[in-house]
């Protein structure tokens, strides 16, 4: 996830006459490069309603999870972890769904913006999956008596985390931007296969993981359902905010490449 200054050679690669990247930078596949078009398409996002909603949504979610929701009879207060654990897992799935769509779009169109969206969503997805794994583990200790169990849900989630960590590592070792984006897109598409497996794991195999939501019912008190929905909405807003910030970072990087190219042209 670390940023490093790109060597001059890399700037050259980015501006090399590869049809893929030419199209991607111009935003028009197969047509000649037009940096002005690329710049216009890659403006960082202005502050929108999402930015204003993040803090209030998180405050409401905290209130709902800690004060509004009733204390669960069997597990006690530790059950409240569920209200933030599930939204983290949901947002992780959503992130990897975005990676999947953006990766297909990159391979289809070679527009650089799709690669920027894919890497941004993958990074956010890894963060949210990490939090889901850690909060699940903290919940498991008092409930199951152990921090970790090789249960199908936990194992498939760990595999999901490893897939997208590998996705980010792969990106950090491939120098050529077009090749990097294409290789990462393949991992982003194939890796997404694990998302439905994680979701269905507690239905397909014997598991100790709770199955709260089934096809026919939700085994929760109505006030708990309201709390869960509030937290799901709050975390979705937070995800959109973080994704916009992270994509903005990629757009700034693109601006750096453009300026370096311009400097080299001036020499």
């Amino acid at each position, binding site marked *: 996830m670390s940023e490093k200054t790109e060597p001059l050679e890399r700037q050259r690669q980015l501006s090399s006459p590869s049809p893929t990247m030419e199209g991607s930078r111009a935003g028009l596949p197969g047509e000649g490069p037009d940096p002005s078009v690329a710049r216009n398409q890659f403006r960082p996002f202005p502050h929108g309603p999402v930015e204003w909603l993040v803090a209030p949504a998180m405050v409401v979610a905290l209130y709902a999870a800690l004060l509004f929701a009733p204390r669960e009879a069997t597990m006690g207060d*530790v059950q*409240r972890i569920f209200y933030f654990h599930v939204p983290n897992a949901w947002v992780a799935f959503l992130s990897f769904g975005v990676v999947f769509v953006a990766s297909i779009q990159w391979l289809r169109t070679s527009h650089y913006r799709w690669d920027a969206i894919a890497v941004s969503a993958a990074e956010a997805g890894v963060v949210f999956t990490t*939090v889901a794994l850690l909060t699940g583990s*903290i919940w498991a200790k008092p409930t199951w008596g152990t921090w970790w169990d090789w249960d199908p849900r936990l194992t498939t989630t760990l595999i999901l985390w490893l897939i997208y960590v590998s996705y980010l590592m792969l990106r950090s070792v491939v120098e050529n931007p077009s090749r990097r984006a294409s290789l990462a897109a393949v991992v982003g598409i194939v890796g997404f296969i694990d998302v439905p497996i994680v979701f269905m794991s507690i239905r397909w195999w014997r598991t100790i993981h709770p199955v709260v939501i089934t096809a026919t019912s939700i085994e929760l008190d109505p006030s708990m359902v309201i709390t869960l929905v509030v937290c799901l909405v709050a975390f979705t807003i937070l995800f959109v905010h973080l994704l916009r910030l992270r994509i903005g970072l990629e757009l*700034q990087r693109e601006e750096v490449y453009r300026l370096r190219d*311009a*400097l080299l042209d*001036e020499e």
Partner: protein
Amino acid sequence: MGSLGYLFAAFAVIWIALLLYSFSIGTRQRALEREIDLLKAMLEERVDAHG
């Protein structure tokens, strides 16, 4: 550790992770902004030098 202790630990993990990630994005953003400013200044200097 009691039930509230685990709850506190879980919420601490969530907020620390989210704050660190936001901080990481902010740090990278500021570094890129500095680089953009520097490159723009260098480019203007070159353009002026070439008349």
